[in-house]
């Protein structure tokens, strides 16, 4: 007998006393917490991002290229990783070496790049979370991981939802997803939160709208 059959057999015997329950799970919890206007939801996103030490900026479409250029200069970034479908023009004013997100780059090559600029798939206000789904303007998962500085652009209010349930509805499980809530952190030393371990130690979120 294979282990598959053995385990499934054990499960079935273990459940011999149980009556089948086909009813739908009752869900009495809320879809979102509190009653907010769209603008208040965006404000809450900004607050919660900042609370977990992300640096939050707001700008219009016109201002974006100069803002990104300034953030890269302030950081003294010499090179930036660019997803294949990043909007033309976002990096128009940035005076840095562009490194394309390519399948054949090695992790060591990525490690030498200073920054990365991506868009996102959705942002969650209540938890201060941005979610990347590997879309063309976000690139492979690793490009937002290896460089130490991540600039993520969120289109507000279109890409912002209030709560986790609404975010899951918008996302596709067939895509590789990365949920990011603030920069890399740890609570492993005396259960105290410290920012900055393996992921980007600086996360800048630009609320564009």
């Amino acid at each position, binding site marked *: 007998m294979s282990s*598959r059959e*053995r*385990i*499934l*057999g*054990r*499960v*079935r*015997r*273990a*459940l011999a006393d*149980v009556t*089948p*329950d086909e009813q739908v*799970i*009752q869900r*009495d*919890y*809320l879809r979102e*917490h509190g009653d907010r206007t769209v603008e208040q939801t965006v404000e809450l996103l900004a607050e*919660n991002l900042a609370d*977990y030490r992300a640096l939050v900026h707001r700008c219009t479409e016109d201002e974006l290229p100069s803002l990104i250029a300034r953030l890269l200069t302030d950081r003294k970034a010499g090179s930036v990783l660019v997803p294949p479908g990043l909007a033309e023009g976002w990096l128009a004013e940035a005076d840095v070496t562009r490194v394309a997100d390519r399948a054949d780059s*090695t*992790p*060591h090559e990525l*490690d030498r790049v200073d920054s990365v600029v991506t868009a996102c798939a959705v942002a969650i206000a*209540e938890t201060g*979370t941005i979610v990347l789904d*590997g879309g063309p303007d976000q690139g*492979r*998962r*690793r490009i937002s*991981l290896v460089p130490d500085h991540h600039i993520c652009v969120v289109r507000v209010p279109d890409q912002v939802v209030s709560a*986790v*349930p609404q975010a*899951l509805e918008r996302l596709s*499980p*067939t*895509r*590789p*997803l*990365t*949920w*990011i*809530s603030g*920069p*890399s*952190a*740890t*609570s*492993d*030393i*005396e*259960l105290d*939160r*410290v920012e*900055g*371990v*393996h*992921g980007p130690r600086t996360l800048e979120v630009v609320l564009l709208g």
Partner: protein
Amino acid sequence: MSGTFVGMPAFPKAAHEAVRNETLRGNLRHATHTIRAKRAKAVAELSDWAELREAGRRIKDHTLRHLDRYLVQLEEAVTAAGGTVHWAADADEANRIVADLVRATGESEVVKVKSMATQEIGLNEALEAEGIRAYETDLAELIVQLGRDRPSHILVPAIHRNRGEIRDIFRTEMGEWGRPAPEGLTDTPAELAEAARLHLREKFLRAKVGISGANFMVAETGTLVVVESEGNGRMCLTLPETLISVVGIEKIVPTWRDLEVFLQTLPRSSTAERMNPYTSMWTGTTDEDGPRTFHLVLLDNGRTDTLADEVGRQALRCIRCSACLNVCPVYERAGGHAYGSVYPGPIGAILSPQLRGTASEIDASLPYASSLCGACYEVCPVAIDIPEVLVHLRERVVEGGPAVREGNKVVLKPAKGHAAERAAMRAARWAFAHPGALRAGQRLASRTRRLHPRTLPGPGKAWSGTRDLPPVPAEPFRDWWQRTHGGKDGAK
């Protein structure tokens, strides 16, 4: 400190030594009190916490009730998405599968995401025996590995270490495993985290094989979810060419939507955050993004035996948040090592004796590692009634009876050392069934109350060693009731 849990003494003995360690008690008190207050605040932010908890309980119960169906559905979905599913009935089989998969890649080292399942099966030691070196990459796991130590907490395995001890371990041990600690390393947490970043980066960048567990597996989509903070998880899940995930069969949720409950309750219960810094979700493999090969090893190792127990099976709802450890007065004082298992604290006291059986001294003693105060049940985000299961397991230890081990029905013998307790219970049962004898006995006890010893003799000595015997009243209650008509006459 030895790196293994084999041959651990029973809980009372191990705890007796631990409570005398003042550094350990100080470290644990500081850490658990910090997180307790933060967790309460994070939970209070959600007005529907009780409803989320109830939904979590229902989803997990429903899943367990149809576990066979959901396992098969998960297998189909993972396979359709390009993954390969393996089934492991016990720890040895899981270790063998993983070792074979690593060997097939031609690699002799792997990077690991913190995973309770691989700790449980002793994967690192098994790989070591095959000539494969496993690097732990979670900060706390790294501290434990470098210190040749054992984990003492589910979420923060190095919770028993303070910053000074961690600095010393990094200074003396990091060089043996790779990049040494920076010169002049101090004990500030930020510097310690930086040292870990530098030490591990070279390992992430060259890793060809990653090994993980998972917090959730979605049956309908085949999606696996890993919830973490540091980014070491993302490194291990995306940079290597081969990913092997070892996951307990109870980690399934039926639908994608079900994640909306646990992604709200898990971070707030464990690290007291609205959301943990990083959550990775993947379904099979993705072309040109992340590992090209994905293996899922589904692990039983005592879970189906636990499932067979009508009372005890609720322990399989556990999402490993560790809130029950952080509020437990026994854990706070005894520390995690005394539990003799990778699952310490209240959840460990009900999980280990079910996964491993109650044959060993340590497992038979674990259901007693509690004052039954109920704080663990109160904070559990999936409402596991831990005190109920503890009492149930105590009964099993004392009385023996039917159970399931490795899929087979067995009848457990009553444990040794509980003969006096059983005799006392038998005597009590007889006395309560014979009111005349009970009355005579109570009167005799009242009249001789001044002669009673303060401690019990013989086998009862251990019991009264840490407890006061209840004083016997001057007059039995029933006599008082009859004499005063229940106090109506105003008589005392």
